[in-house]
């Protein structure tokens, strides 16, 4: 119990003194996760919206696959990305293994299906409401997709957050392709795992607290934004 309380006090001291190692790990975690979310949004929003709006052969199959891929095991994704970007893999010449880029790729693969599947659901609901009106305006399908994404923007914020939550908390894939290398690919989750195994609970706890605070802050911000949008009838 004493160890636990001393670990807590150490953790707070690291946070309040803005420990350089700690800040580096947090910075890398955020940049990797935000980059992965950005990539996933660029792919997932249009993919989800098109799956919701456009009738094409295999649409239902794609929707089922997207839903199924939401539960992709991170370690398996890490392994697959590892096989592709390792020296012997098809993209080995790009020297991506054990780099932040590799971690972004792995996280993007993990969260793109989440963003796409949830986007499909949000857009499908809005499309039911707008469909006849937009067709009566003879709006082309590309414009329908853009209109729906724009008008569903506050709902889609929750989707983005779900993706970000998955990315920032992810361990399995990033440790396989990133390697948890100090000052290069060490992020909060991999550092927590490592420091815990080493018995350095202070840093692990400090990172854990920050991870929790980050997750809570982002969700609270989204909740407030969405709530105010709903009160204004935009969402």
């Amino acid at each position, binding site marked *: 119990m004493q160890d636990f309380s001393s670990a807590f006090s150490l953790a707070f001291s690291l946070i309040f003194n803005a420990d350089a190692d700690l800040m580096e790990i947090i910075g890398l975690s955020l940049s990797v996760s935000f980059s992965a979310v950005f990539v996933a949004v660029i792919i997932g929003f249009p993919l989800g919206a098109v799956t919701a709006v456009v009738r094409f052969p295999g649409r239902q199959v794609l929707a089922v696959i997207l839903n199924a891929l939401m539960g992709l095991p991170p370690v398996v994704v890490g392994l697959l990305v590892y096989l592709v970007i390792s020296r012997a893999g098809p993209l080995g010449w790009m020297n991506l293994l054990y780099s932040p880029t590799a971690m972004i790729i792995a996280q993007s693969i993990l969260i793109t299906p989440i963003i796409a599947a949830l986007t499909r659901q949000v857009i499908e609901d809005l499309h039911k409401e707008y469909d*006849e009106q937009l067709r*009566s305006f003879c*709006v082309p399908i590309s414009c329908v997709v853009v209109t729906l994404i724009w*008008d569903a923007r506050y709902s889609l914020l929750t989707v983005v957050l779900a993706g970000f939550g998955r990315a920032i908390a992810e361990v399995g894939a990033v440790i396989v392709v990133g390697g948890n290398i100090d000052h290069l690919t060490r992020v909060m989750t991999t550092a927590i795992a490592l420091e815990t195994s080493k018995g350095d609970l202070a840093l692990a706890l400090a990172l854990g607290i920050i991870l929790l605070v980050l997750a809570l802050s982002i969700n609270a911000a989204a909740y407030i934004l969405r709530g105010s949008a709903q009160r*204004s*009838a935009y969402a």
Partner: protein
Amino acid sequence: MRRPIFYVVALNDQLMPEFMLKSERQSSSLLPLVVQNLSFRVGEKLLLDNINTTVSSTGVSVVLGANGAGKSLFVRLLHGLLKSEQPAIQWNGQMLDLAIRKRQALVFQKPVLLRRSVAANIDFVLTRFIFRRKTAHFIQQRNAVLHEAGLFDQRNQPARLLSGGEQQRLALARALATEPEVLILDEPTASLDAATTFQIETRLEQARDKGIKIFLVTHDIAQARRLADDVMFMHGGRLIGHSTSNEFFNHPSSEQAKAYLEGRLLF
């Protein structure tokens, strides 16, 4: 003979006209409307049964009938939101296509407003139908539309926070902003009070006076009396009669029409 439509691909913004009115793109009237052997079924159920009629006159054509008569279905087919089994609708000798649909506007019973401000709802159609770019003239036109609808002061409010009557006025203003040649309305005043109904009807009369052909679906006999130039009476998915307003109200030709006008229950 219809004039071909030429779209200019601008290589330079300076070459692009600020706006292009629909009237400059299309000048021919969409009338007459000829409906021949129009049927519509869902599965085995026949919802519209062999409708035949011709509409040549401008003004307001009221589609009248009880609930379930097929009125809404009929006007959705006229506008091309639904497709019949066989091509059965001709506007001025042309089969219904996208170009013709763009010259029409449809207002629904329950207004479907974008999750945007009042002004942005008007902007949405202006940028698609009238203007190529948002210029000072664009803003002027939008403000004029909002003034005409009596919604200028609410222009920055979220459209979906307007009252039911204001929402329907906005939906009508948005439809008229597309400068349609044909305006189709599906029971636009069904859930509105008398004052708002009066405002909507006044706007419709103004539109009619500008030469816009109006198809109005209603089951409100009093409204039909006020607005109709001709009446299409529907019952059970069939067009029972199509006559001038005077003929229909003074000498209804069918038993169903007589019963409907007398307020008797129709089955």
